[in-house]
């Protein structure tokens, strides 16, 4: 057994914890733990036992373990400073594998049977950490030293210095395995949200609950009661625990009160919205199957009461960071609630009366208190212990755990006091954090030497109890009840202050004392980030004096506790250096979350394939049966192609589909295109505003292609409008823009032309729509459409539309429109029959060797036909760029026409849509290639445009592309280079018409 190992167990006990299983050497009697229920757990592989009700920290302390972590920078040995979520030192990796959870505060990790915890940020072991060598070089590693060095040679930062720094930095490890647990979200509504169930919160909950208000009482801890659980005094004639039990029973019986333990309110957002995290299953080995680990609640509150208590603050002195040195209130919590003492002999260092309670409670539990060191010359006496008034702790000893403290007595002499633990109290800081999440800036209260809530609190919030600087139990109860009455009164709910028990009402007696000036060594302010008093002095010396500069330069307050235990000390030191009062120096901003929140919790159920909902087409089930390959198109899953047996490459499938459509007929599910129903006497006039081209004179039974511009003259969507009746159009949009077009139409209807009598509604999903394309399209459809409908070219010409029936009487809509350039129709039936229709169409098409086709074939055919699509309508192209300048009507007021006339959008060399064909037909054309003149340099300045879309055309037997080319309208026949330096390719292409197939449109009019 080495000496170091001996140190990390309190009071020099040299027993090996693993060997002495079950030996809870520092367990006291009583407390709120269930000693009948023993829990086995391991820490760094060693087996220990604790009790139900323990935290990992309390159980380790019970087992005599004080050393629980290492600091960030110097790798100093550290034990728990606190007994709560503000813990900066005792951070562990909890669990393993995909559930490994770094930086878990041992002080709030509820013990469960089989808990597996490991220390972190150390190598090879917690006791012997190689990186603690940093501590030896701390004089070189002062605040901001890295800004001043590692600059030469220039390349060395990334190659040498940074990797070393990076490797050394960070705290716990993430497994990088997928998190196997589920998370959930929820929404709650209440009249009154009470944040914290200490005495103030409980009194408020009782007051509001009794009058029937909808109350949510959220408590971070797994026990209600707050500090009452940690103190020895009672309420009235009963113990704190007994009073809490009474209150809990009463609240549980009130259906209008929702008590939420293990729930931390972490953020205060606008208009009374709060976020809260409920830890549903962190206190068990693993969540039940299907049950969440944690829930993120979004709480909509009418009023909120912040009763989040206060956090004790340390005093900085030389070597004030050794395991065993902890906050006095935390030590009291360990003693009273968990029946654990961190060591068998303890000393106390305080600047206020509250510290004396720790001594008294320790003594009451039979722990030896060797000294109470009080900075106040007039400190009150404590029963049964030696008091050193006007004294200071100036240094400590103990490599892996405290063994003694050195005092400077009022008389000036020094004295060493042996102890395994030191309780430190520098006073308490109200937990004002949530009051600052919006605009609140706390104000200084001299009597308690602390910031209290002030300024603009989040609207609807008020603060009660210790969070407001009212530290006594009686004050907490009183302000809690009164706060509830006031909050409810705002809401018109009458309530009266509940009868409250007698409670401790001690005044705060405190003399502000922040750090011990004596000593040349280091006195820690931020224990996790290793920021010392010296670092603050250096920041001051280098003019990093504003609080934000101080924070950023030294990293003070940037640790996982976000400065809860460190900010005040740093501020106080800086205030002294600049010769100002603390409130003049200011505070740094508290930002959400109040305590760190797992990303899984914030994401909830929106993970993996459920990240966003999937939209499926009416033919999805059928397509699956065909073995289709699917692709995400926005939220939709569409068929990409339908592979057939023997096809080993997607191109084989796609080429086959295209050729067969052009030869005979194919069918494609086009339901995803947006369908907006536009009705009303002014529908045509409305569409005239919406579309760049004119719609007023479109005849009933006809369809027209339309281009929509943004008000800035850029094209954003295209589609068709079919006039089903004088006052009824069906507008189609691209799949991607259905929502946007609808929104814009509503804007035009409600905000721009509010008196137009027009009604719009989306019917995208109501109709299953299929394109039937190819020379045999009519023949095929005639087999499906009921015989009384004439589909001949004369009766149903290109761009015709009408209502028909199919398959013996089912209502359907038929549109003769073509994206492929072939004779084509689109037929729509109510969605529930879409599956039936595709089966019927395929069966009817057997004699024509009909093929189903997907988005790839669709894409190939539209490129062959020169139709602009998403790659061309990319938000930067105008009608002019797309070759549709003439469509923009100058005779009517349509959105975008005025702005599209701006000079910069109408230059002679404006980009124009062209077709591009490789000079060497075997060369591939790649979308995203840039166009350069045939001769000359390849450079950004020489750029002539770019290829927007490309595909292999099985009809032409070569790759083809569409591109946007400067002055493209006048460059047909020119040879250009399509350069793609990204992939090291360059292809000679010829500028051709964008209509590669059937430029005269004979096929689609057939």
């Amino acid at each position: 057994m080495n000496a170091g190992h001996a140190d990390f167990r309190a009071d020099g006990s040299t027993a090996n914890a693993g060997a002495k299983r079950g030996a809870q050497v520092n367990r006291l009697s009583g407390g709120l733990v269930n000693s009948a229920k023993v829990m086995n757990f391991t820490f760094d592989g060693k087996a220990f036992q604790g009790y139900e009700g323990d935290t990992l920290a309390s159980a380790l302390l019970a087992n005599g373990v004080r050393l629980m972590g290492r600091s960030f920078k110097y790798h100093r040995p550290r034990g728990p400073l606190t007994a709560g979520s503000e813990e900066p030192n005792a951070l562990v990796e909890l669990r393993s594998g995909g559930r490994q959870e770094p930086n878990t505060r041992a002080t709030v990790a509820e013990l469960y049977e089989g808990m597996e915890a490991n220390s972190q940020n150390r190598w090879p072991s917690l006791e012997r950490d190689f990186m603690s060598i940093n501590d030896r070089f701390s004089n070189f590693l002062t605040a901001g030293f890295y800004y001043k060095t590692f600059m030469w040679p220039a390349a060395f930062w990334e190659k040498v210095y940074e990797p070393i720094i990076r490797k050394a930095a960070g705290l716990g490890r993430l497994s990088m395995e997928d998190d196997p647990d589920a998370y959930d979200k929820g929404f709650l509504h209440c009249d009154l949200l009470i944040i914290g169930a200490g005495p103030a919160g409980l009194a408020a909950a009782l007051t509001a609950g009794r009058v029937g208000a909808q109350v949510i009482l959220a408590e971070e801890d797994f026990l209600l009661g707050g500090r009452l659980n940690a103190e020895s005094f009672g309420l009235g004639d009963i113990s704190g625990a007994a009073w809490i039990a009474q209150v809990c029973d009463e609240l549980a019986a009130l259906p209008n009160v929702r008590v939420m333990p293990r729930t931390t309110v972490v953020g205060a957002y606008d208009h009374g919205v709060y976020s809260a995290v409920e830890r549903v299953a962190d206190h068990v080995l693993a969540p039940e199957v299907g049950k969440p680990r944690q829930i993120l609640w979004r709480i909509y509150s009418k009023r909120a009461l912040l009763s989040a208590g206060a956090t004790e603050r340390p005093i900085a002195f030389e070597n004030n960071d050794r395991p065993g040195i902890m906050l006095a209130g935390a030590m009291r919590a360990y003693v009273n609630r968990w029946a654990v003492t961190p060591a068998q002999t303890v000393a106390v260092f305080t600047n206020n009366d509250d510290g004396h309670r720790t001594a008294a409670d320790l003594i009451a539990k039979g722990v030896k208190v060797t000294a109470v060191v009080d900075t106040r010359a007039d400190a009150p006496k404590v029963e049964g212990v030696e008091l050193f008034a006007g004294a200071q702790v100036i240094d400590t000893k103990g490599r892996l755990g405290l063994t003694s403290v050195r005092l400077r007595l009022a008389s000036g002499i020094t004295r060493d006091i042996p102890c395994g633990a030191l309780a430190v109290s520098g006073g308490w800081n109200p937990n004002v954090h949530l009051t600052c999440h919006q605009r609140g800036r706390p104000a200084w209260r001299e009597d308690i030497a602390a910031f209290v809530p002030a300024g603009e609190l989040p609207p609807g919030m008020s603060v009660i109890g210790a969070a407001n600087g009212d530290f006594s139990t009686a004050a907490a109860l009183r302000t809690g009840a009164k706060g509830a009455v006031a909050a409810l009164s705002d809401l018109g709910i009458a309530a009266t202050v509940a009868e409250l028990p007698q409670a401790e009402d001690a005044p705060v007696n405190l003399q502000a004392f922040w750090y011990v000036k004596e000593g040349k060594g280091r006195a820690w302010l931020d224990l996790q980030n290793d920021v010392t008093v010296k670092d603050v002095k250096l920041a001051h010396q280098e003019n990093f004096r504003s609080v934000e500069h101080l924070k950023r330069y030294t990293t003070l307050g940037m640790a996982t506790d976000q400065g809860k235990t460190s900010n005040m000390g740093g501020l106080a030191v800086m205030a002294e250096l600049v010769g100002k009062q603390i409130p003049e120096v200011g505070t740094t901003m508290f930002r959400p979350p109040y305590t760190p929140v797992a990303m899984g919790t914030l994401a909830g159920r929106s993970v993996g394939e459920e990240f966003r909902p999937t939209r499926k087409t009416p033919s999805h089930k059928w397509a699956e049966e065909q073995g289709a390959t699917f692709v995400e198109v926005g939220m939709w899953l569409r068929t990409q192609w339908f592979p057939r047996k023997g096809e080993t490459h997607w191109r084989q499938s796609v080429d086959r589909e295209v050729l067969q459509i052009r030869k005979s007929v194919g069918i494609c599910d086009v339901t995803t295109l947006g369908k907006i129903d536009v009705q009303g006497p002014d529908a045509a006039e409305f569409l005239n505003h919406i579309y760049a081209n004119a719609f007023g004179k479109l005849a009933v039974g006809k369809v027209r292609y339309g281009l929509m511009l943004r008000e800035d003259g850029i094209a954003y969507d295209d589609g068709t409008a079919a006039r089903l009746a004088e006052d009824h159009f069906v507008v189609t949009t691209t799949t991607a823009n259905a929502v946007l077009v609808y929104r814009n139409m509503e804007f035009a209807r409600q905000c721009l032309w509010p008196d137009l009598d027009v009604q719009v509604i989306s019917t995208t999903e109501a109709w299953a729509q299929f394109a039937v394309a190819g020379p045999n399209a009519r023949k095929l459809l005639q087999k499906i459409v009921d015989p009384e409908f004439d589909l001949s070219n004369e009766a149903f010409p290109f761009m015709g539309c009408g209502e028909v029936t199919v398959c013996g009487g089912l209502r359907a809509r038929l549109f003769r429109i073509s994206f492929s350039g072939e004779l084509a129709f689109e037929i729509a039936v109510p969605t529930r029959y879409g599956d039936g229709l595709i089966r019927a169409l395929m069966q009817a098409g057997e004699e024509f060797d009909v093929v189903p086709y997907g988005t790839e074939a669709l894409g190939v055919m539209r490129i062959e036909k020169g139709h602009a699509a998403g790659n061309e309508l990319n938000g930067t192209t105008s009608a002019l760029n797309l070759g549709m300048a003439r469509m923009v009507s100058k005779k009517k007021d349509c959105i975008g026409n005025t702005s599209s006339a701006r000079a910069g959008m109408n230059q002679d060399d404006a980009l124009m849509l062209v077709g591009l064909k490789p000079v060497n037909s075997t060369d591939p054309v790649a979308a995203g290639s840039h166009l350069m003149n045939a001769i000359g340099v390849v450079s950004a300045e020489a750029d002539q445009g770019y290829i927007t879309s490309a595909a292999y055309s099985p009809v032409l037997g070569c790759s083809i592309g569409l591109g946007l080319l400067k002055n493209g309208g006048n460059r047909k026949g020119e040879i250009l280079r399509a350069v793609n330096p990204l992939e090291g390719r360059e292809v000679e292409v010829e500028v051709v018409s964008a209509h590669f197939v059937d430029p005269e449109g004979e096929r689609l009019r057939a």
Partner: protein
Amino acid sequence: MHSLKAITPLGGTCPQIDHFDGLLISENSDRALASIAARQGREAECSAAVQSILGLKLPQPAKWSIGGAYMAWWMGPDLWMVDADHTDHELLAVNVKRAVGSVGSVAEQTDGWCRFDVSGARVLDVFERLCNLNLRAGEAGDAHRASIEHLGCFVLCLEAGAKYAVIGPRSSAGALHHALLTTAQSVI
């Protein structure tokens, strides 16, 4: 009678039903829907026509109402969704249009939506994980729109605290159903 077979939004030939302890989730595919938008300045006439011909009083904002064989819920200013049994009223839109004539714009909406009826003792516990509606404070007759799992859905309170209808976009029926099931599992 035509020869095409219908499938439900979840893709089955008959509606899917899922049981939990204290919760029942049933796909309801037997609804016909048609939207009515009153023409400008004809709002009163439109409501009157619906009432006199269909026997249905169109509901106030955020409410649903029932009349004869029909039910309707408010969707937006001067915009309602009318609902009836699909089996008996497959051509609901045609009939509604006949009723309102030129004072209203009617669109067939039947298959734009999927519907799940969610009922049982745990129904409110499930909904508080699904959407931000304050259903505990609501009453039968409420008709809200809410975002559930990123989907815009109507939530109708059929029986306060006991039975609700969730009506969401049909193409996402699977995603909505999945959300209902996982939430139910999470809660129950």
